[in-house]
C-alpha cells in the first residue's frame, strides 16, 4: 500500500507526461507481483462492486471525527473529493500497518457477505491504521473511482516500456476481458488471455481536429471524405458465434442496442466493424438529443424503441475472417467493407456511411455547410493510403467540424467552484430574454482565462444582489457568448430547452444586456434541428 501511495503522490506531483511514465515504470518494476494487475484494473476503470455504500462511509467518518453533518458538508464542498475529505477530517491513526494493496482489495471484496456491523468495524480499523495519504487511497479503493490523471494511453506506454512489449499489443490485452484476481502481471502484459477470449476490440483510431486550411493537406485525390456523425463511436465484434458491441469508452454496450443483434447471423466469424451508433428513423439520422434517450439504460421500453430506433453507420473494417486488417490501407479496407455491407439485409439498420465525393477543397467546404441539415457535425478526412492507428496520431485522420452554435446570454447567478476553484466564483448560470423576463438557459464554468475569472470574480463580489447559500444572484450585466453542440427539449429546465455541451466561447465586453438572444430565437433553432430528422 505504501509503494502504491507513493506512486499516486509522484503522479500528482508532476504534470509532465514523461515524469508520470517514469513513475509508473519504476512502480511496475518494484511493486508486489499480485498488486500489479489490480493497479492496471483500477487505472483502466475496471470497477469492483462497491462493498459499502457511500452514505454509510460518510456517516461513519462524520461520527468518528466528531463534527456535525453540515460541517462535513462544508469541508466536502471545499475539498471537492469525498475520499479526500474523509481522509482529512478523521483523527490521526493510532497504529500504522503496512499491508499489501491486493490484501486490502481482497478484504474489501470479502465485505460483501458481511453485515453492517462487521463492515463498520473493518472500515474504522482500516482508517485507524493508515496515515492521511494512505487513507485517501483506501477510500478510493472502496469507491472504485480511481481517476488520477493517468490515461489508458499513458499507462499502456509505461507498461510497454517496462515490459519491452509493443504498445498496441498491450492496449489489446488490457482492453480485453480479464479479472485481476485470475491473471498474473506477466500473463496480462504478455496477452496470454486474449487469444482465448473472443470479445476484445481494437483500440480506436482517433482523429485530430483540423485547425488549418484543408488545402494544406495536399491533393484532394489522396483523401476520402465522409460525414462526421454525432453519435456514439462503436465497434461491432463477431467472433466464435458471439456478437459484442463496444463503445469508445471501452465499455461493452451490447445489451443496450437490441436492433443490432441480428448481425450475429449476418456477419462472419472474425469480423470487426468500426462506425457510429446513431438514432436512425425513416432513413434519416436523428439529432443526438434523440439518441440520448437510449443511452445508459438498463431496460428499454417500446416507446423508446419506437422514438429512437438505432442504426449503425459503419465506415471501417478492422478484422475479416479473423485477420487483422489494420496494416492495410484505408482504400483497401473501404473496398472490402462495401462488399460485405452489400450482402447484409436490413440496410436501414446497418448503413454504409457514405463517402462525400469532391474534386476541389472549395467544393468540399461548400458541401460541409450542409452538415447540420442531416444532423452531421461536419466532415471527416481520412488519407486513402493510411493504416488504422491505435489511438490518436496526427496526420492521417482529421475531423473538420462545422462551427458550434452560439447564443449571447447574460450572467445572472454565480457560485464558488469546488476543489481548486473553491476560492473564486467560477460556476455561472446564464440567461436569455423572454419578453421582459430573463430565463436561465445554461450553466457553464469553462472557457475563461485565469485573468478573466479573477475579473468576473470581483464583479460578482461587488454586484451580488442576493445570497442563497453558496449562490449569488448578480446584476444582469455581463454578456457571454455561449457555444453549444445541440439543442433539445427539456421538461427539467424552465426554458423548456437544454443546450448540449454549453461552454463560454467568449466574454462579450462589447455587448450590453439588452442585446442578448431571446427564447424565441432558440425555439426556432430547435424546430429547425428536429425538422432535419
Amino acid at each position, binding site marked *: 500500500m505504501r509503494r502504491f501511495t507513493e506512486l499516486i503522490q509522484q503522479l*500528482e*506531483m*508532476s*504534470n509532465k507526461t514523461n515524469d508520470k511514465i517514469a513513475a509508473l515504470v519504476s512502480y511496475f518494476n518494484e511493486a508486489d507481483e499480485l498488486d500489479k494487475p489490480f493497479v492496471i484494473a483500477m487505472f483502466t476503470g475496471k470497477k469492483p462492486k462497491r462493498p459499502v455504500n457511500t452514505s454509510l462511509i460518510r456517516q461513519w467518518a462524520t461520527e468518528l*471525527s466528531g*463534527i*456535525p453533518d*453540515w*460541517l462535513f458538508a*462544508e*469541508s466536502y464542498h*471545499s*475539498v*471537492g*473529493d469525498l475520499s*479526500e*475529505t474523509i481522509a*482529512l*477530517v478523521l483523527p*490521526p491513526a493510532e497504529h500504522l500497518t503496512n499491508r499489501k494493496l491486493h490484501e486490502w482489495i481482497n478484504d474489501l471484496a470479502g465485505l460483501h457477505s458481511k453485515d453492517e456491523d462487521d463492515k463498520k468495524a473493518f472500515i474504522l480499523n482500516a482508517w485507524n491504521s493508515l496515515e492521511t495519504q494512505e487513507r*485517501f487511497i483506501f477510500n478510493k479503493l472502496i469507491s472504485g473511482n480511481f481517476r488520477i490523471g493517468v490515461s489508458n494511453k499513458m499507462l499502456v506506454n509505461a507498461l510497454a516500456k517496462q515490459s519491452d512489449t509493443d504498445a498496441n499489443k498491450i492496449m489489446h490485452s488490457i482492453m480485453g476481458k480479464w479479472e485481476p484476481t485470475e491473471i498474473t502481471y506477466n500473463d496480462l502484459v504478455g496477452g496470454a488471455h486474449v487469444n482465448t477470449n473472443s470479445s476484445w476490440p481494437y483500440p480506436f483510431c482517433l482523429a485530430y481536429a483540423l485547425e488549418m486550411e484543408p488545402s494544406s493537406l495536399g491533393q484532394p485525390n489522396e483523401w476520402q471524405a465522409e460525414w462526421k456523425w454525432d453519435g456514439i463511436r462503436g465497434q461491432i465484434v463477431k467472433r466464435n458465434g458471439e456478437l459484442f458491441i463496444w463503445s469508445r469508452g471501452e465499455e461493452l454496450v451490447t445489451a443496450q442496442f437490441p436492433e443490432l443483434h441480428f448481425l450475429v447471423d449476418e456477419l462472419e466469424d472474425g469480423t470487426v466493424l468500426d462506425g457510429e451508433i446513431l438514432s436512425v428513423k425513416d432513413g434519416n439520422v436523428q439529432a443526438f438529443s434523440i439518441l440520448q434517450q437510449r443511452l445508459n439504460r438498463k431496460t428499454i421500453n417500446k416507446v423508446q424503441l419506437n422514438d429512437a430506433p438505432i442504426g449503425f453507420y459503419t465506415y471501417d473494417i478492422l478484422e475479416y475472417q479473423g485477420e487483422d486488417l489494420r496494416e492495410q490501407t484505408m482504400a483497401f479496407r473501404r473496398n472490402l467493407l462495401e462488399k460485405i455491407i452489400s450482402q447484409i439485409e436490413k440496410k436501414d439498420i446497418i448503413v454504409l456511411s457514405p463517402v462525400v465525393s469532391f474534386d476541389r477543397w472549395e467544393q468540399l467546404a461548400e458541401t460541409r455547410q450542409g452538415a447540420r441539415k442531416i444532423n452531421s457535425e461536419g466532415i471527416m478526412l481520412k488519407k486513402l493510403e493510411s493504416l488504422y492507428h491505435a489511438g490518436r496520431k496526427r496526420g492521417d485522420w482529421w475531423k473538420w467540424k462545422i462551427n458550434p452554435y452560439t447564443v449571447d446570454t447574460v450572467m445572472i447567478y454565480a457560485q464558488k467552484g*469546488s*476543489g*481548486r*476553484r*473553491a476560492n473564486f466564483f467560477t460556476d455561472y448560470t446564464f440567461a436569455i430574454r423572454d419578453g421582459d423576463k430573463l430565463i436561465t438557459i445554461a450553466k457553464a464554468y469553462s472557457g475563461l482565462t485565469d485573468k478573466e475569472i479573477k475579473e468576473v470574480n470581483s464583479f460578482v463580489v461587488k454586484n451580488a444582489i442576493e445570497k442563497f447559500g453558496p449562490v449569488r444572484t448578480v446584476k444582469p450585466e455581463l454578456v457571454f457568448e455561449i457555444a453549444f453542440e445541440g439543442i433539445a427539449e427539456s421538461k427539467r429546465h424552465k426554458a423548456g430547452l437544454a443546450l448540449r455541451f454549453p461552454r463560454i466561447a467568449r466574454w462579450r465586453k462589447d455587448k450590453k444586456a439588452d442585446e442578448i438572444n431571446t427564447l424565441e430565437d432558440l425555439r426556432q433553432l430547435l424546430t429547425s434541428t428536429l425538422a432535419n430528422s
Partner: protein
Amino acid sequence: MSLLRFTNKGIYCKKGDFYIDPWQPVDLAVTTHGHADHVKWGNKAYLCHDLTKPILHQRLGIDLKIETLPYNKQIDINGVKLSLFPAGHVIGSSQIRLEYKGEICVVSGDYKVEYDGISTAFEPVKCHTFVSESTFGLPIYKWHPQDLIFSQIKSWISNNHDQNKTSVLVAYSLGKAQRLLKGLEGYSSIYVHNSIANLNEAFIRAGVDLPETIRITADTKKEDLQKGIVIVPPALAEGRWIKNLINGSTGVCSGWMQVRASRRWRSADAGFALSDHADWPGLLSAIKATQAEKIFVTHGFTATFSKYLNEIGIDSEEVKTQYGNEEEEEKIEEQPTVKEDLS
C-alpha cells in the same frame, strides 16, 4: 462590547481613539504584523512591536512615524491600557491586548500555535472578547508537526539534486521565507529573491539572528542555483524566470497545499502544507484558552467557523474586514535573469 467597533476603516477603539490594522488611513494605526493586508500606507502614526518596525520601513518607506513596544509592556492611550503579546505568526507579530475599566479585549491579527523556531511563540491571553482569524477554519486543516514537513522538504530537495533539478521553494517573503531558512539551515546554500533578501537584511540590522543566504543577482550562475536551494515569493512561482533555470522544480509551502486540488491548481511540482496560520485544532485550542465570552471572527471561513463555535457553546459572530489576502497583495519587482555559465 463597548471597547471595540468594527467600522468601514478597520477595528476601532473609541475610548482610546485608535484603530487596529485599519485598511483606510487613520491617525493612529496599531499594527499586529507586517503583512500587506494588515498594514497600509498613509496612516499618520503607527504603533507596533519592535521587530515589526523594520518591516514597515522596508515595505512602506522610511518616512513613517512609528512607535514601538516590546511584548508584555503596558502603555496607556487615553485611559486604555494597551500591551502586545506574541502571536507566533511571523517575526514581530503581536496580539493587541486592550483593557479599560476591567474589560479586556484581544485582537489577534493572524496567529499560529505551533512554535516555528523563529517567531516568538504564541501566548494565549485571557480576555472577555477575542478577535480571531479563521484562515484555515475547516476541520480538513490539521497540520503535521513542522519537523516532519521539513524532513519531507529535505528529501524532496535531495531527490531533485539526484535528478539534476533546481529546487525552487515558493514562500511569502515575510514569515514563511525566514522559517524555511531556519529549518533548512546548514543543509545547502540558500539563494533568495530580492524581496526576501531585503527583508532579511532589515531583520539582521534589527538584531534578528538569521541563517546566511545569497541574494540572486544578474551575476548568479544557474549551475550554482542548481546545486543549492532557491526561495522565491509566490508572484514569481509561475513566471518565465523559473523556466529559465536548469530543470526548475517548484515546491509551494502553504497551508492550502493540504488539499490535492490546490496543489494541482498551483501547478507546482510539489506542495508542502507548511502554514503560519493556526490549523483547526489550533484555532479551537487558542480560543478556548482565552476563556473569552465573545469571539469575533474576522477573515477566512468566517461563517462556518463562527457557526461551529456557537454550536459548541462559544458565543461568536462573523465580522466583515478586508484581511485575508496576504499572498495576492504582495507586489514583487521582476528578478534579473540568471546568466548561463559560459566558462
